């Protein structure tokens, strides 16, 4: 069950001092906490979990020398990446080149401000939460294009353009599919969406109440959303913007050291953001039996992460024209069909 009190208010009460300064401080503290939760998860996912998962899929061992299960590779990699020389090629478009990684990483982090993570961890709960998440997450496209264009490299340019074409094609089905969920809830507020899923009963099987998570209510929308999400975060079969064997590394070809870390970080936070949106819209957010809400939330977004890694290891990449075709001719039509059908069914049954 999501709490109705946002995290800053909880902290404000804990501090126990009145006044604007204390309010501001508690806001910063809350943001700091949530930012750190996400960064920690990314740090575990990027240098360690991703390697281990991919290795398991491909019959390898992966990191196992540094610390228990190779876990300290996270520290080692962080030091290594940060201590590398930052190479800035000649004739890059300076402010854009520097801003791109920051835009990418921060856009994803910003969206987490409104995600209810359970156990009272939610920075803010505006009534337009869902719109805010999509709006902020789409800023990433600007970052990718900036990076691709400013790098003064043709591979980067191709990658940047591909990224924008792909995000345009898949953002619309993503939002339309999310709208079909909103039809059920009648609210854009994320805590409300979670609460309705958890409080409605879909069926009772052998005495166990199955909550009306939208993944159960409308599996078709769930599948559509998961696929569109794969494209949104650029993982196989939709990893055309990076496509290492075709255009080297796409928009991030020229980035090194700290900038590269920011790109890498941004990508992983985006994967987790995708997982968070899926969890919130379709999997009951932080809800779940026995364990605390936050733990359930983490389990759910890691499950989505695992799925993306699985797709990456086992599915071939589609060609850019096929990708656009699937987006505009397939996903868009299906998502509208889903929306209209949902609306009709809701209207007829009067749920």
């Amino acid at each position: 069950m999501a709490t109705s009190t946002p995290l800053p208010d909880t902290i404000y009460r804990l501090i126990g001092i009145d006044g604007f300064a204390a309010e501001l401080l508690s806001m910063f503290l809350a943001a700091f906490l949530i930012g750190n939760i996400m960064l920690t998860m990314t740090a575990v996912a990027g240098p360690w979990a991703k390697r281990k998962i991919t290795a398991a899929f491909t019959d390898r061992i992966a990191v196992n020398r540094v610390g228990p299960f190779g876990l300290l590779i996270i520290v080692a990699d962080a030091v290594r990446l940060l201590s590398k020389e930052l190479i800035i090629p000649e004739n890059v478009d300076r402010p854009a080149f520097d801003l791109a990684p920051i835009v990418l990483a921060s856009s994803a982090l910003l969206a987490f401000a409104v995600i209810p993570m359970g156990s009272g961890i939610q920075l803010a709960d505006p009534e337009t939460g869902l719109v805010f998440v999509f709006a902020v997450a789409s800023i990433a496209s600007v970052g990718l294009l900036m990076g691709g264009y400013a790098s003064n490299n043709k591979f980067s340019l191709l990658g940047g353009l591909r990224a924008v074409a792909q995000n345009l094609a898949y953002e619309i089905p993503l939002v339309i599919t999310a709208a079909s969920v909103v039809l059920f809830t009648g609210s854009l507020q994320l805590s409300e969406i979670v609460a309705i899923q958890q409080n409605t009963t879909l069926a009772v099987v052998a005495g166990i109440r199955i909550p009306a998570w939208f993944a159960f209510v409308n599996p078709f929308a769930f599948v559509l959303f998961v696929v569109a999400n794969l494209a949104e975060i650029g993982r196989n079969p939709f990893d055309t913007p990076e496509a290492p064997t075709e255009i080297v590394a796409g928009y991030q070809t020229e980035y090194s050291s700290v900038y590269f870390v920011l790109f890498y970080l941004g990508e992983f936070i985006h994967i987790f953001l995708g997982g968070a949106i899926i969890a919130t819209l379709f999997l009951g957010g932080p809800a779940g039996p026995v364990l605390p809400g936050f733990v359930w939330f983490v389990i759910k977004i890691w499950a989505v992460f695992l799925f993306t890694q699985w797709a990456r290891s086992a599915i071939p990449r589609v060609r850019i024209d096929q990708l656009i075709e699937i987006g505009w001719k397939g996903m868009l039509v299906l998502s509208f069909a889903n929306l209209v059908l949902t609306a009709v069914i809701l209207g007829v049954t009067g749920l």
Partner: protein
Amino acid sequence: MSTHTEPDTPVTKTEGVDADAIEELLGDDVLDRETHSNAEGIVVRADAVQDVLQTLKDEAGFDHLSCLTAEEHPDRFESIYHLKQYDDPTNELSVIVPASREEPVSQSAEPVYRTADWHEREAYDLVGVQYEDHPNLKRILLPETWQGHPLGLDYNQDKPQIVTFDEHKNPLEEDHMNAEGGDTMFLNIGPHHPATHGVLHIETVLDGEQVAAVNPDVGYLHRCEEQMCQQSTYRYQIMPYPDRWDYGPGGIINEWSYARAAEDLADIDVPEYAQILRTMGSEMCRITCHLLATGTFALDIYGDFTAIFMYAMQDREKMQNLLEDLTGQRMMFNYLRLGGVVWDIPEPREEYFEKVRDVLDEMPERLEEYHDLITSNEIFQSRCIDTGSLDPETAKDYGVTGPVARGSGIDYDLRRDDPYGYYDQLDWDVVTEDGCDNYSRLLVRLREVEESARIIEQCIDLLEDWPEDERNIQSNVPRTLKPEAGKETYKAVEGAKGELGIYIRSDGTEKPGRFKIRSPCYNNLSALEEMSTGEYVPDLIATLGSLDVILGEVDR
């Protein structure tokens, strides 16, 4: 082993080539006749090359320009066009074109056979023959600033070469290459790029995401292999070099190409037992090569070091362990000797046979997994079917051989058509597919793995039952080999990539007078332009992957 329909032409009968009839056919253009140990040679005028070759192609059925060997002699330059027929490669003919040393000009064969384009550029680059009417007679293996022609007689090897490097050359300058249209972009793919399988540089002009023009720039891995072989003795010194051509590793097959040519030149017999060992080793190499090709091709399509790549590597590893047990090496086998092989199956023999059988028994199951994971995947099919199309006629024009040709429905395999080793005694099939696309080439490779496994299995059975006192691994070959002067031969074997041919001219010493390598990858790669123009960048990469080029063999 299998039947052929022979071309219904007056001059080529089922039994070889009738040189007299050909001489008559060509009339005044013929200057002289020669005899090479693999084929009859006709000497033609340097200004009639196109006429002669066109006539031979149209009326005598010589549709395969296998190789071009150029050489500088004290009194003349000479270009030898080694012609074959795709329907029966034992019908061979050498067309010899002399040109004077003062003015080494010879007519280009490019208008007749497209494959002559790269071959003549190479001949110009290394030997210095000028080909008149050639569309693009530039250096191909050496840098454009190179001075002199290294295989020429007057070449000074000690003279330092200055290869300029324009440090701050504007990389965008070349953009203007196609500036008229205004909407194309010049892109250098390679020499350092994740998908070029070595150091290949592909100059590409893009129109959006589509490929408007492609020009493969080779030569980054040129190691003077031909010259090194010319400076080594037949008996021992040349044999290690072939391992360095196709390091897929197709080492034993490469060694066999040299062994076959040299044994033909020096009339050396190979004991049957050694032939079986060679056959088995070759097929192990072929499986290793094809698995590498499958893995890297999947890598090009999937984009990451995914399951398929690692699975292919694991299976390849098993085969490599067998090769290691047999030869003592994992890549640079140096296993063959003129007249046989260097040693027998490792003791205890039973254990080795058991190991081989274990690997072969697993093979069908593993291949099933490849078909599950790769070939039956719909996304994979949508990427590979009808991309990189190469129709049979174009393929023949470019001298394409091996799995690439067989993927275009050309039923051409030297193991069957020009039998050597023990292949004609064994029961196996030549695999062809009619799709002419990337997908067919992959299917051909996967099915060839099955066929190779069949061959190995039969070899193992034969070796196991071979009487102990008849296990003769080498015939008696003199310590110093000096084939008689002036003898020339061109012999090819079916490498993992296609027809791997060796031309040797003996000058009476213990070292070859001219040693020429016909690399299958070199020819196959030259068809890339034809296959990928007009397609998308990802298809260009996939096509390159399905050609399965090993740059060590392209550049030699």
